[in-house]
């Protein structure tokens, strides 16, 4: 797994490459917590290059959403492959998380 972090105005964009599983998710969590600590409260996670996610990855997303809510921030997910989106639907995560088709669309939500 590889994470590319970008900042556009005051929005942090994380592009996740590869797999978010029980083995790699702790590193992903560290990266996000670090950004929150450094003052980010608007985040986009771009899943265009994500091949795989398990409950460990969902746990990080859930935790991030909660933390950002406490500091009046927001998390938006974008560009998911269909079979990844299905996992968000099965688990009901799509009911509390904004999921949009493209990164540009996500940027317009802030």
């Amino acid at each position: 797994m590889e994470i590319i972090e970008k900042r556009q105005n005051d929005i942090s964009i994380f592009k996740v490459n590869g797999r978010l599983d029980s083995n790699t998710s702790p590193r992903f969590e560290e990266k996000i917590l670090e950004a929150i600590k450094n003052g980010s409260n608007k985040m986009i996670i771009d899943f265009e290059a994500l091949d795989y996610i398990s409950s460990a990855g969902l746990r990080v997303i859930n935790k991030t959403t909660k933390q950002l809510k406490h500091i009046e921030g927001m998390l938006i997910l974008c560009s998911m492959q269909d079979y990844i989106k299905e996992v968000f639907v099965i688990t009901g995560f799509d009911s509390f998380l904004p999921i949009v088709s493209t990164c540009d669309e996500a940027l317009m939500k802030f």
Partner: protein
Amino acid sequence: MNGGKISFEFRSSLSELDKLHRNLEELGKSLGMSKKTIFQINLAIEEVLSNIILYGYTDKAEHWIKITIWDQNRTLNIRIEDDGIPFNPLEAEVPDLECSLEERQIGGLGCHIMKSLMDDIVYKRLGNKNVLTMKKTIQDT
């Protein structure tokens, strides 16, 4: 592999997941499985394995988990055997998916995902082993 079985053995460590992913990619390609089916099988197995590795053992010793896979008329059978504490994932508490974000508890999520993705799951405790058999219809590429 038609009719034949293949087996993999994994140490009780999360770093073994890379090996699992690689093995399943290869198997999926050799059976002409769609990317989606390979993903769903991989995900179901990871949820079972990570539960065993994180919560299944009461000692610090190294344990082995055996996975056997065979194709039966385009239905993939996956058997997972471990010598951890008795655990039947079919009886795991179903997470409340309707509750608000603040109340949402994450435990049980992995079992819920596994049950949603597989067509059939049977759990047995045989001697000192948990034996879980899952079935999934193969979707062709």
